[in-house]
Every structure is written in C-alpha cells, then in structure tokens.
C-alpha cells in the first residue's frame, strides 16, 4: 500500500529532478549568451526558414511563433511544433550551452569598461535579433514596431498611474496630441499634400529632422498635460480621474472638429520614417530616461507623494513640482509614442484615441505591474503578443483577454511584476553558477 503511494511520487520527483537539472544548466547563461543564442536562431530562420517550412508542409514561415497557425489550422500543429523545435529551441539551447563559459567571460570583460559600453553592446545585439526576426515578414515588422510603441506608452502611463498613484485616463489624449502634432509637422514641412500644398523644406532632410519633430510633438503633449496636472494640486484620486477623462474627450472632439486636419475622417500621407530602427532607438531612449528618473530621489518623490503626501511635503519635497514633472514627463513620452504611431500607421483618426485605446493602455499597465519598469515592458509585450496570437479566435479573443486580466487583478491586484526596480548592472553581469554548483543545488533539494 505504502509503495503504491510512494512510487508515483518518486517517479514524479525524478522527472522534477531531471527538469531542474536541465533548467539549472541554463541558469548560468548570461543575458549576453541568450542574445547570441537567439541571434543564432533567427539567423538560421533567415537562411533556411522558408525552405524548412515548406518541407514541413507549412505555406510560409510561422510569423508569430506559430500561435496563429496552430489556433487556425489544428492539423498543422505537429509541423509547426517541429519547426519551432528545430529553428528556435534546439539552436538556442545548443548555442547557449556551448557558449556558456565564453559568453560569461565576454560579459565579464565588457563590465570592465563603463557600464554604458556593456549596455550598448547588449542593446546592439538585441536590435540585431529583432531586425533579423522582423525581416521575415511585413506583419512581424509591424507587430514589432507597434509593440515597441506600446512599451513607451505603458511605461509613460505607469509614471502617473503607478509611480504617482493617480488614476489618469487622459493618456490616449496625450498620444493623440503627439500623433497629430508630429503628423502635421512632417506633412506640412516635407510632403506634397492636398491640404498643405507643397513641402516647405526639402523632403530629403526630413528623416534627419524627424527626431526634432517628435520632440516637439512630445512637448505639445506635455503642455496639454498641464491642464490635468494643475487640478491635481487640489484634488486627488477620483476627481482627477474624471478630469483626465474629460480631457481625453475634449482632445478627441477638438480634433474631430478641426477640419483642416481631416476632422473625423482622419489624417494621412505621413512619410514612412518610423521604421524599426527609429522606433527601437526611441524605445530604448524612453526606457533609459524613465529608468534613470524613477531611480533618482527626484523620481522617488513621486512615490513619496503617492504614499503619504503630507509627509512628503513636510520632508521638503515640493509636491506640486513633483506632480507637474510626473504628468508632463509621462505626457511627453505619450506624445512621442503617438508621433511614432502616426508614422507607423501613416494614417490617424480621432476614433483611434478613444475609450478603447484607454482600456488597452490601462490593461497593459495593470497587467504588467504598477511601479515597475520591467513590469511595463512585460505588460506591453505580453499584451501585444497575446492579442496577436489569439487573432484567429476573432471575437472570443476579447472575452479571453479581459478574463485573463480579471484573473490577474484577483490574484495580483497590482499586476504581475509590481514594485520592482530594474537593475541594469545586475542584469548584464556574468552568471557565476558553475556546473558543480548546479548539481549541488539539485541534489540538496
């Protein structure tokens, strides 16, 4: 009797043991190793992806890790899984394992210089990976760019809703301000257009001035944020939520009424300047500045105002200034995200920036986690991938995603990864875990 109970549990625990042993061997792989491994996989896909996909009976390379294919055509599941295994899992596994000691040494070597150098190398590798991955299809490229913009948007909303602890609903409004400001500037200055006539500047210098246009768009959004920030001196919480909501509606209907910008029909003809590298650079800049900000005493003042405003004030924190900075900084990045968005879609209309957009951004922030840079990245990427992956389910997608989010709210009311800082030095450092240590961990369990 006893044996029959213990047997399955021992067999289970050997499986668990094996899994731990297997997984534990990866714990010594530094971020650098993973990036190189994935780079190998996407390079492989570049070279042999479509040929291999055809061999497996797939019409083309599975664009989003096969989710869409598997949900839409169940009989292609085995082929897709084999594809994922051969193109992704095996190469990544082999390269990370084989190169473990080398990549660790390399990561350690990089850290001998300024941290920024190491960070730049990692970011460069990441860009290479994303670029190669997105190169396979336009759809991948578009999804990736929109996801990166979503990261900017989520991070910036987290500044207000997470770090400053207000429930702001005006974010799509800031985004709209940025989108229209950037679009109008680029079209007016650099594009032959029915409304604005011939370009005021030579179109070929446009791409170089595009960053300036985006910054201007961000600044316009930031000025708009004053309208929400100033009432926040007197009122907090609920009434601020309403004020920000009213602001969103005002911006939206203001644009609808500006016939010169196309009114509710929308505004198009934006030049195609928001390619992957542009969006990527802006996203990295956003993560960098926001991470810098929230780890400084200046940025932590937002937390102090949120947790106990009276005490913050009594401890010499200028609470009004803090709120203004928080709102304007968040709106600035929302404006830039809007500008990028407009130039990715090359068409915007006021309907894009309504309640649905608000629900989407709020969902990403609260799904990922409040008060956390990593959380926002996870939230934006997770939400976007999920949303694309579930596309074959059509309508039911909008039942499954909300249900998932409700579950997250029930079990982790402040999101998956909340209140966690992002330590770059820790992230990039080599992993010291040697093989013996891994074994030790496993046997001691």
């Amino acid at each position: 009797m006893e044996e029959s109970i213990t047997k399955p549990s021992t067999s289970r625990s050997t499986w668990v043991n094996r899994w731990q042993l297997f997984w534990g061997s990866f714990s010594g792989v530094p971020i650098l190793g993973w990036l190189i491994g994935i780079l190998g996989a996407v390079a492989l896909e570049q070279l042999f992806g479509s040929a291999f996909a055809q061999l497996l009976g797939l019409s083309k390379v599975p664009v989003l890790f096969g989710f869409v294919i598997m949900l839409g055509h169940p009989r292609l599941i085995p082929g897709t899984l084999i594809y994922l295994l051969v193109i992704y899992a095996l190469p990544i596994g082999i390269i990370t394992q084989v190169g473990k000691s080398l990549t660790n040494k390399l990561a350690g070597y990089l850290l001998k210089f300024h941290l920024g150098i190491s960070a730049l190398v990692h970011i460069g590798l990441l860009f290479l990976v994303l670029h190669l991955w997105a190169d396979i299809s336009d759809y991948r490229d578009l999804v990736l760019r929109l996801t990166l913009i979503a990261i900017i948007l989520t991070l910036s909303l987290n500044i207000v809703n997470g770090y400053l602890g207000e429930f702001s609903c005006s974010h799509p409004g800031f985004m709209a301000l940025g989108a229209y400001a950037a679009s109008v500037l680029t079209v007016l200055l650099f594009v032959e257009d029915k409304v604005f006539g011939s370009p005021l500047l030579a179109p070929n210098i446009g791409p170089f001035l595009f960053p300036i246009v985006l910054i201007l768009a961000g600044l316009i959004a930031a000025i708009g944020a004053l309208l929400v920030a100033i009432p926040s001196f007197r009122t907090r919480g609920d009434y601020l939520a309403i004020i920000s909501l009213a602001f969103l509606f005002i911006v939206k209907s203001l644009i609808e009424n500006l016939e010169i910008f196309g009114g509710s029909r929308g505004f198009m003809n934006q030049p195609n300047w928001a390619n992957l590298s542009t969006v990527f650079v802006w996203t990295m800049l956003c993560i960098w500045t926001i991470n810098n900000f929230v780890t400084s005493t200046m940025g932590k003042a937002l937390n102090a105002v949120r947790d106990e405003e009276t005490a913050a004030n009594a401890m010499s924190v200028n609470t009004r200034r803090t709120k203004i900075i928080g709102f304007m900084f968040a709106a600035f990045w929302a404006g830039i995200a809007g500008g990028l968005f407009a130039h990715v879609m090359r068409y915007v209309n006021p309907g894009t920036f309504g309640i649905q957009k608000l629900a989407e951004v709020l969902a990403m922030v609260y799904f990922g986690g409040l008060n956390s840079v990593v959380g926002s990245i996870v939230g934006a990427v997770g939400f976007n991938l999920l949303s694309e992956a579930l596309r074959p389910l059509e309508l039911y997608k909008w039942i499954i995603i909300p249900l998932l989010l409700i579950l997250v709210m029930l079990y982790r009311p402040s999101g998956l990864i909340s209140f966690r800082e992002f330590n770059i030095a820790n992230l990039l450092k080599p992993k010291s875990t040697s093989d013996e240590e891994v074994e030790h961990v496993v046997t001691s369990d």
Partner: protein
Amino acid sequence: MTSFLQNLVNAMQWGSFYALIALGYSMVYGVLMLFNFAHGDIFMVGAYIGFFVSSGLIALSALGSLVLPSWLILSITILLAMFLTSFVGMLLERVGYRPLRSAPRASAAITGLMIGIILETGNLALLGAQRYKFPALIESTTYNLGGVFITNKKILIVFVSLLLMFALHQFVQRTKWGMAMRAMAYDYIVVPLMGVPINTIALLTFALGSALAAAAGILFGIAYPVLDPYMGILYGWKAFVAAILGGRGSIIGAALAGFLLGFIEIFVAAFISSTLRDLIAYSIILLILTFRPHGFFGEAYSARLRL
C-alpha cells in the same frame, strides 16, 4: 422662442437617459467607493433584455395565446427587464467586485472595464453582428402646442424617468435600507457595528442601479429603436462623467447633472453645431470640476474612512 421650447422638450428626454444611467454610477460610487466602469454596458444589457421581453410578449399576443393591451406589454417589459437586469448587476458585484473590495480601487476599476468588454463581446458573440430593432410598443402621436411638437413617447419617457427617480429618492430617504446606503456612503467601515450586513447593502445598491439602467435602456429603445452592443460605451461614459459631476453618491446631484448634460448637448447641437457637442459639453464639465472639485453635492472624503 418656440425653437427654444422645442429643444427644451428634446433636452428633457435626452437628459432622462443620462440621469437614469448616472444614478447607477453614483449609487455604486457613493456606497462602495467604486467606479463601476461596466455600468454603461448594463444599460446595454438592460435594453437587450427589454427587447427580448417585449418581443416575446408581442409574439405571444400575435399567436393569440396571451392577448395583452400594449400599455400592459410596456409596463410588464419595463418591470420584468428591471427585475432581470438587477440580477446581472448583483452577479457583477458578487463575482467581479466583492473579491476585490480590499484591493486597490484601481484594480476594481480595471476589472469593471474588462467586464464591460466581456459584456459587449459576449453580446456580439451570442447575437451576431446584426442590429436589432426595438419593437414599437406604443403608437406614436404628436401634439402641437403652439408650434412646439411633443410626442406621447417623449411624455412617457420623461414621466417614467421622473417617477423612477422620485421612487428611488423616497426609497433612499425613507427606508432603513436607504438609510444604510447613506450611512455606507459616509463611513462604511463602522456600518457593520450597527448590525447592518454590508454585503447585502452592496448587492442592493447594484441591483437598484442596474434596474434603473435597464429602465433607461428600454426608454432609449422606445425613442431610438436600433440597438447596438456598443451603446453602453457611447452613452454610459457620458453618464458616468455626469454622475461624478453631481457629487459623490448624491442622487439629486446625479439626476440634475444628467439633465444638465442633456440640456448642454441638445442646445449646443441646436444653436451652435452638433459636431461641437462633446467638445463644449466636456469643457463645461471640466470647468465646473476645476472650481467645484467635489461636484454639485459632493463632499470631500478623508482618512476618516479608514479604520
């Protein structure tokens, strides 16, 4: 002058919808300190329930198995739909909001937002993309009062709305249940010390709010017969802003603000431009809230609400 009066009549009808929906937001917000972002969709669900109830009753009449006069069909539709929709509201409270009562309030707001999306999508999934037309429950007659045209539908809509608001006001002011609701709005932590079961009061609040939203949905269906799964988003959010403008948990405030919003919208559309409707309406709201941050009848709440 006649055009002013004509628009006044229209505004009364338009304001009735906002006022009835706003009451539900306001009550839930007052009693439970919670933005029920799904309330607009309850309005939608109520309209659809009303559609099915009335269509069913009309079908029964047509078959001859249960011949009812049209006023009775209307009354039964309103009452039955209110009754059924109140269960939707109670379900929402029990499943969606009660588990989150001690969580940060933003989490509950997000949950409401998501429940709203589920209700909209669920409607589309169940009923498909085709638009349903609300059956004509009453024969339309138009009265001409010195150049001002008033239909019997408008009179009915305004009358029923005012009646429901009055009934709610009486309920909240006169009964012990209403008293408990007011007490919870003031300081819900110590309400259990009075021997009041707060979960029951929470359910009651949701039930009442949802019933009123259902009534609004049916009245809306009488005036504008085409139903749309997204009608909750279109009108609910505006009513929400009106509710807050009225002041936290204030029934009179919510009703007044609802009518005010109706008036602003109709008059802007009539005398300025219909495209500027939202812009002017929300600008006025923003102005009012800047100078009266707690709405018309609201009062600041404070740390007193904590234990």
